[in-house]
């Protein structure tokens, strides 16, 4: 469970201060998937980083029921370490937490078809494979909460849809509490049980769009999918 209330973030540089987040209240239930959508530069990334604990300069409250070690974050630029092999990148979280058993990483690599690249380096992978490796790295620590910052940005349509399917499958299977930030309307409609629409900078909640019928791969072709996407289009500034 994640509970965010009256979250405000100001960036201060020198004597100037700039409002990034004006006040956001969001509640995410255990096992729920919430997508945060908003225009570029509205403060989505700052919002997610603040929840993930990468930014201490905020006011308001962030309550997370889980232990910090069970919260995983996938950054927009993924942040794969170029000097580590695919295997070492996949097991990074486990190494950092001193977990000896790497079977979960192995299982995920196998499942996402990356095992064959085990000894390769990230620069040898395609864009889609790197994103998948980012997903493996985040999930190998068996998180309860998964935070994702535009995890599929700059991928071709085909790869993006396939990876959206993978994310959806993993979310259901592992019972993850998921929060995803994106500027892609269809991604939001496909992956969010609820979609929080943010205003342009400084960010605040403009509207919350319900999308309870999502949940299987076929959803993309249903009337409801287009209905949600349409609502989002109307809501976005």
């Amino acid at each position: 469970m994640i509970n965010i209330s009256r979250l405000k973030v100001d960036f201060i540089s020198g004597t100037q201060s700039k409002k990034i987040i004006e006040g956001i209240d969001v509640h995410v239930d255990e096992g729920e998937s919430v997508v945060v959508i908003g225009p570029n530069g509205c403060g989505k990334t700052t919002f997610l980083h603040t929840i993930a604990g990468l930014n201490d300069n905020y006011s308001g409250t962030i309550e997370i029921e889980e232990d910090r070690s069970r919260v995983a974050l996938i950054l927009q630029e993924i942040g794969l370490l170029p000097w580590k092999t695919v295997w070492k990148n996949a097991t990074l979280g486990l190494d950092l937490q001193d977990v000896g058993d790497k079977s979960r990483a192995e299982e995920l690599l196998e499942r996402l078809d990356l095992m064959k690249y085990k000894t390769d380096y990230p620069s040898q992978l395609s864009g889609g494979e790197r994103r998948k490796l980012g997903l493996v790295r985040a999930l190998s620590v068996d998180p309860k909460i998964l935070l994702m910052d535009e995890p599929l940005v700059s991928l071709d349509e085909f790869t993006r849809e396939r990876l959206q399917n993978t994310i959806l499958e993993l979310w259901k299977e592992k019972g993850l509490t998921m929060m995803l930030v994106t500027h892609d309307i269809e991604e939001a409609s496909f992956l969010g049980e609820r979609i929080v629409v943010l205003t342009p900078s400084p960010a605040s909640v403009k509207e919350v769009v319900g999308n309870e019928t999502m949940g299987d791969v076929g959803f993309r072709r249903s009337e409801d999918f287009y209905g949600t996407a349409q609502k989002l289009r109307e809501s976005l500034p």
Partner: protein
Amino acid sequence: MRHGITRYVVSLLFLTLLWWLAAFIVRQVIPGPKSMVLSGPIKAFSTLFYHWGSIWPNFLRSAIRLVISLLISVFFGATTGLIIGFEKTADRLLSPIIYIAYPVPKIVFLPVILILFGLGDLSRVIFIVLVITFQVALSARDAAKNVSNRWVKAVESAGGNRLQVYRHVVIPAALPEILTSVRISIGLGIAALYLAEESFTNQGLAYYINNSWKIFAYSDVFAGILAFAILGLGLYLIVDLVERIFCKWNYID
């Protein structure tokens, strides 16, 4: 690897040819015994071979002095450089000190060091360390400054502490640049070693070369220079090997 060896052999032949040509011209232009001052390559190589017995202890002594100095410099230089580059407070406090101390010609301190620490190897090592360390520290600092924030965030968001950020991000990211600074340090270190071995010692390649000058044994002078070249080449090859092992990711086609 075979191509590597071929490249070295071809380069060696090319340099030897230039050397031979220079010696030949000097012999034609300058008459008399003065022309002997530039020994030809064949004479120098054969002297190196036949006098190896007396050159070897000097080579070994120089190599030990240089390698120990390099290890100390790299350890302290890289450690402080990485911290200064990565921690903003350390940068503000220590960067000015480095900027002031780095350009001072360290040779002026050699007599001071010899008086304070005696005429043994310790003084010579301290002098070489003084010459090299700043340069390594500056390279490491710049490398650490350029570490991408997304790598740091990746480790931090996965629960990594500061030490783990150094271990998994800062050190491996900076390693190629640190090794480049080590290569530069080998050249600088040999120059410093030469100065440090010129006086108050009875062993070392610089001592051997100086001594040979005094007795007009010119081919021994050049044999000593060749020994220095071998020492430098050996160290460069070791650094290359270290880079191939620890920076494998940098060698992907």
